[in-house]
């Protein structure tokens, strides 16, 4: 994999912070702070008064039995749902409501539990659509892109397309999906589609990556591969990872700190060892009469 400068499109703000220092992973300041979030759908209380923070370059897991509100929490962070109370602050800026477009621009990307890939496009187009956020060439430049590639103004679209293509190829090499570059996404097996979904999120050069059950429905070998990819992303690009998962084994291995949700309430927060010992968590998972 070629170590290309992640900032090549001159984006302001440190995108991806690729130069995390060598040696033990340095976990930085609080980058994302969720304060007393409550979310209701009509009468149904999905989340009640949830607060936790996420530090930079950390692998933060959110676990809990099915229906505990994990996905709803993720959807609040990235603006798909608007919580009734509470606020979310990112790098110091506090927001009551997030809109998903603004969230994407700030550098928070996400994958989807049930694969929201664009079936009508090939793998490489799906990844390139992740780059659309950073495309600067206008409509006209894109229309006249073909033969005028050389010119400064009209040709800028083609040059920019090539830069984005080079960046995306870096991700293809990283995720080892070179052989499927031009195949339609819909025809790939489930495990590979999950990788393309991860690739599309990476194409947005995120500072924080929200992973919604990346290993749901995978066999053991695919789970190992995906965990390796997640750790590599965190290690190579320094991206902060927020991981939603209900497979305890995976979470305990690869996460630095864990939040435990149950019936929309936070019942545990801390390192995997602390959480494993916590009665409430055990009761929530092993299930006793409520």
């Amino acid at each position: 994999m070629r170590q290309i400068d992640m900032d090549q499109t001159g984006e302001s703000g440190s995108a991806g912070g690729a130069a995390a220092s060598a040696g033990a992973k340095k976990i930085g300041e609080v980058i994302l702070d969720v304060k007393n979030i409550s979310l209701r759908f009509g009468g149904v209380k999905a989340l009640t008064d949830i607060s936790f923070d996420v530090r930079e370059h950390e692998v933060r897991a959110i676990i809990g039995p099915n229906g505990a509100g994990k996905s709803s929490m993720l959807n609040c962070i990235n603006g798909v749902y608007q919580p009734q109370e509470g606020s979310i602050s990112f790098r110091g800026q506090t927001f009551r409501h997030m809109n998903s477009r603004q969230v994407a621009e700030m550098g928070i990307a996400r994958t989807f539990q049930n694969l929201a890939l664009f079936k009508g496009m090939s793998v490489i187009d799906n990844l390139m659509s992740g780059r659309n956020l950073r495309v600067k060439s206008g409509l006209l430049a894109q229309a006249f892109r073909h033969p005028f590639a050389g010119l400064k103004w009209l040709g800028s679209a083609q040059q920019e397309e090539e830069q984005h293509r080079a960046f995306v190829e870096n991700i293809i090499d990283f995720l080892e999906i070179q052989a499927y570059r031009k195949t339609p996404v819909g025809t790939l097996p489930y495990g590979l589609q999950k990788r393309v979904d991860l690739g599309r999120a990476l194409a947005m050069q995120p500072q924080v990556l929200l992973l919604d059950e990346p290993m749901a429905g995978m066999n053991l070998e695919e789970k190992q591969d995906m965990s390796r990819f997640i750790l590599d992303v965190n290690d190579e690009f320094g991206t902060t990872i927020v991981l939603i998962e209900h497979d305890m084994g995976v979470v305990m291995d690869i996460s630095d700190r864990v939040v435990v949700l149950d019936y929309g309430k936070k019942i545990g927060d801390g390192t995997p060892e602390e959480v494993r010992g916590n009665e409430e968590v055990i009761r929530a998972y092993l299930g006793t009469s409520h």
Partner: protein
Amino acid sequence: MFYRENGQFKTSYRADQQIFPIDQDRWLVLALLAVVCLVVPALASDYLLRAILVPFLILALAAIGVNVLVGYCGQISMGSGAFMAMGAYMAYNSLVRVDGMPLIVALLIGGLCATVFGVLFGLPSLRVKGLYLAVATLAAQFFADWMFLRVKWFTNDSPSGSVSVSNLQLMGWSIDTPVEKYLFCLGFVVVFAWLAKNLVRSAIGREWMAIRDMDVAAAVIGIRPMYAKLTAFAVSSFIIGVAGGLWAFVHLGAWEPAAFGVERSFQLLFMIIIGGLGSIVGAFFGAAFIVLLPIFLNQSLPVLGALVGVSISTTGVAHAEAMVFGALIVWFLIVEPHGLGRLWALGKQKMRTWPFPH
């Protein structure tokens, strides 16, 4: 079968991203262009040019416009007729009211006005989807029908509402013989098809397709749904507007609002359903199909009728034509929702992996 791809490797992204990366495809297209530009004008009869080729080219151009909106961006629009009408009338007005106005600029102005009209009636697409949007665009269609009939300014106060255009000049070269009309339209179609192809394979094209495939996911990865939808409406109506101008100026010569009624919108929609949603070449297939089918039916039905002993009048043929269209739409939607365009792509893929099945 004809493909020999060994040795065609790419050493730069520019080479890899060109419109026709495989040599055999490039030769095929160049040969086609040569035939269309040189051989056809020389050999084709006036009837063939005037009655088939010119309408085919202009409808193909309009179909490309509709395909950009419906096929690539997934926004169902039944107002294409209105956009064509706007293109035609505004081109006419700019030609008539401003003397010395070059023909091409007039047509482009018509296109721009259609763009404004299109974006205006594209606004509902921000709030509603699918069926509701279809009805909203019908509003555009009926509003335009009424406007061009009632508001006298558009038709330069002509009593009957019909207007006409004569001796089109293009830098001193008058366009009136079928061959000149054909070449004039061909120029437009080739340029616009290539512009559209560039757009749909660039970033904006991916945004449109993302909105079409799953707009919720598109918003989350940073695509602005409003920007994508409105650009789709804008580009689509610009192309349709110019096509409308060409249809009125070159094909009809004299026309009234009914020429761009709701049947035109349905006809354009049929073209891209049969031709192929989401493919530029599909627009050409659709246009060819819609232009050639009636002619084919006119020839074959009376003969068939005679065989069976039933004499089929011209109105009978018209009805049969409607029935055949209806049946074909349903058949295509069942067998191959992506129409002839997809069949063409599948055929090409089969040729590339020949003799293997996959």
